[in-house]
């Protein structure tokens, strides 16, 4: 029997669980407008996974990349959750570089 998939999925479950944490905390302190940077980081992780010689490293990079891309699409909804009072709201967020350009783009939400 091959237990590679079972071990990888348990690690991925932890990565997804951490996704809940960083989306909530990240949106609170930085705001949802950082989404293009998070998405780019996710894509870079996946591209990096293609060139990893070790299968465990490749799988971990891929799972982190997939989770980061999903998290980027969750930031806008999380911002609304904070504004509705479902999570603590922080009115003094740290804007990302090129914020004026990013504001013109439609933030993804799936």
């Amino acid at each position, binding site marked *: *029997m*091959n*237990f*590679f*998939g*079972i*071990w*990888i*999925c*348990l690690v*991925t*479950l932890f*990565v*997804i669980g951490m996704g809940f944490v960083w989306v909530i905390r990240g949106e609170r302190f930085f705001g*949802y407008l950082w989404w293009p940077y998070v998405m780019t980081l996710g894509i870079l*992780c*996946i591209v*990096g*996974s*293609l*060139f*990893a*010689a070790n*299968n465990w490293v*490749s*799988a*971990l*990079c*891929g*799972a982190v*990349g*997939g*989770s980061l*891309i*999903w998290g980027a699409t969750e930031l*806008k*909804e999380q*911002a*609304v*959750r*904070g*504004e*509705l*009072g*479902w999570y603590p*709201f922080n*009115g003094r967020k740290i804007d990302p570089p090129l914020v004026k350009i990013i504001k013109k783009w439609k*933030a993804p939400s*799936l």
Partner: protein
Amino acid sequence: MDINWVGLSAALATFLGIWIGHVSVRKIEREVVNVWIPAGIALLAGFGLWLASTLTSNLPLSAASGIVGVTLLWDALEIAIRQPARVKHGHAPANPNNPRHRQILADYPEATTVDLLDRDPIGRAYSAEEIAALKAGGR
């Protein structure tokens, strides 16, 4: 340099597993009266994919099966427990055509048929009056 497909397989399984699970959980919980039936199916499918992941020597396939399996197990929990709790708190819209949701609307004052998340951020916190107006159907 050889390309390692394990990571791409894990990435696709993670992203698609979460995305499709996220959309399906909301849709299924909204429409189905007895949520334990789809939750049981998701549970069986999740364990089935876990078993399948142990039976293949192909690592990208094993990783994808394992990851989609674990997202299905999580979806079972979401369908049966977590999404109904969101509907009770008004964090997900209730479906008045579903008898189970009609009962939730009758029993839980916070429950609403309005999808409060279906809007763009405004950059400030809503007041209690504004939230009440949103729930009354206004935007």
